[in-house]
């Protein structure tokens, strides 16, 4: 006896295909919704900033006169912040990842550390700001200088670097390590000569993504009391500073007083988005170029 009733199948075929088409369109709409919002946002920001972004906008210092105001201070503040965040997260993040993947015995302690690193990644950024205020700004007496901001940001993005580096190290095939150990190499020689070079693209991708997060973060710096109305440019990591998102925040607040500030904020947003877009593209390029070599 046959299970499949051909007549019944034919009768239901139409409605089955209709449901299929509906499902496809629902999912397409879900995807388009997010994209649409993004497009509207970018359109409005770009429209507001047209005519405001020019060479002087990038190179001028801050001014109360919207015509003369530039974001040089915010740009150099962001750069100095990276000077602290990049090396600190590299050393601490990659170091932690190497320890957890290569040295730590797989056991309860390792699992405990691992869980907490994942938890750390979920801690709201404002909490990191309070931590930075307590430890770096107050206890160590650094105040609201680049170093304090940079260390706070480093803690904030550290889990991203650790997790990305761990994944990159784990993806290095075991047979490469075996080849190295088999010739009498020590663990550190194996890590330095085989594991890290193979994992480097993945690690760099993680570091770049972490830096781009640090560039866009605002909340911890608000807590640290980073000023927005700062005219002198920072000359080093011990100077006071401001960054692009802070600039955007205060200009947006003050646009109630001076309408043109809204245009300045929009211009800064465009520059910030551009920087983030470039950084993320580099990360994607590195990832694609070095993917699956083994």
């Amino acid at each position, binding site marked *: 006896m046959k299970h499949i009733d051909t007549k019944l199948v034919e009768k239901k075929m139409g409605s089955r295909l209709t449901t299929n088409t509906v499902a496809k369109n629902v999912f397409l709409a879900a995807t388009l919704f997010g994209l649409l919002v993004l497009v509207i946002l970018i359109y409005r920001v770009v429209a507001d900033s047209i005519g405001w972004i020019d060479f002087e906008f990038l190179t001028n210092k801050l001014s109360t006169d919207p015509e003369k105001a530039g974001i040089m201070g915010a740009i150099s503040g962001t750069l100095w912040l990276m000077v602290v965040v990049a090396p600190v997260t590299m050393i601490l993040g990659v170091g932690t990842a190497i320890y957890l993947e290569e040295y730590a*015995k*797989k056991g309860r302690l390792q699992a405990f550390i691992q869980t907490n690193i994942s938890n750390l990644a979920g801690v709201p950024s404002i909490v990191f700001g309070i931590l930075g205020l307590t430890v770096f700004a107050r206890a160590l007496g650094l105040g609201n200088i680049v170093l304090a901001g940079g260390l706070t940001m480093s803690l904030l993005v550290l889990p991203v670097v650790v997790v990305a580096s761990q994944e990159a190290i784990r993806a290095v095939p075991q*047979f*490469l*390590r*075996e*080849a*190295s*150990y*088999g*010739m*009498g*190499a*020590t663990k550190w*020689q194996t890590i330095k*000569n*085989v594991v890290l*070079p*193979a994992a480097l693209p993945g690690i760099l991708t993680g570091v770049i993504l972490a830096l781009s997060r640090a560039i866009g973060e605002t909340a911890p710096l608000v807590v640290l009391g980073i000023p927005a109305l700062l005219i002198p440019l920072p000359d080093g990591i011990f100077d006071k500073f401001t960054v692009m998102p802070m600039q955007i925040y205060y200009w947006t607040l003050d646009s109630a007083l001076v309408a043109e500030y809204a245009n300045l904020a929009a211009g800064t947003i465009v520059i910030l988005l551009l920087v983030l877009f470039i950084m993320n593209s580099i990360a994607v390029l590195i990832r694609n170029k070095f993917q699956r*070599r*083994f």
Partner: protein
Amino acid sequence: MTVSTFTANSAANTVKDKTESKKGMVYNTKDLNLWYGETHALKNINLEIQENDVTAIIGPSGCGKSTYIKTLNRMVELTPIVKISGDIQYREKSIFDKNFKVEDLRTHVGMVFQKPNPFPKSIYENVVYGPKIHGIRDKKVLDQIVEKSLRGAAIWDEVKDRLHENAYGLSGGQQQRLCIARCLAIEPDVILMDEPTSALDPISTLKVEELVQELKKDFSIIIVTHNMQQAARISDKTAFFLNGEVIEYADTDVIFSNPTDKRTEDYITGRFG
């Protein structure tokens, strides 16, 4: 020559004068037991392995032959749940002795793996990896080592014009011979081969087998193989492993023509495995 001085020095503390007894023993395994967690993988292994022999280890999958060869250079301990009892002596010195560092052991005992595993570096960098690890920096010496090792592994003529190209551009068989060259570059005393031809085509297999015949003049070779014909072709002695035990260990001719144990006979005649 600088290269040989280096070996003599580093080997001095562990290797007794090789010329003293013509056919010495490289490995002496005594009552070796090994567990992976609860699984008893090697049971009361007692084996004496002669120098300048090719010793083949045969047996069906899961019989412990790979585990055994990886125990000889302590690579098996990279698996954290391994427990070992008994002893293995290399040149009359326990490999588990605290004063005998694994790094030192592995400098005397090179290993060639089942799947060719060159580093994603140039052919040249692959060969000099071991010597560099052991502190050789002189470019001239390294160049000599590269030529000598690649010639030793019968691959020099194929790669001499592309030493600085990535090793991943080589065929599987060439990669495996490069791995053998890389192993020769640390001037080992013993070479462990864990099914070195199982991932290769018949022609590449033949080349590696011929190479093994050539290498036994200078090295002691212990080779795990799944392929009984290979064991018969290239080895002097054969050990038959089954379920973690050594069933029979004798001259290869004897094992293949006149085995004592019924199970050996069943295996080599293809009745199981």
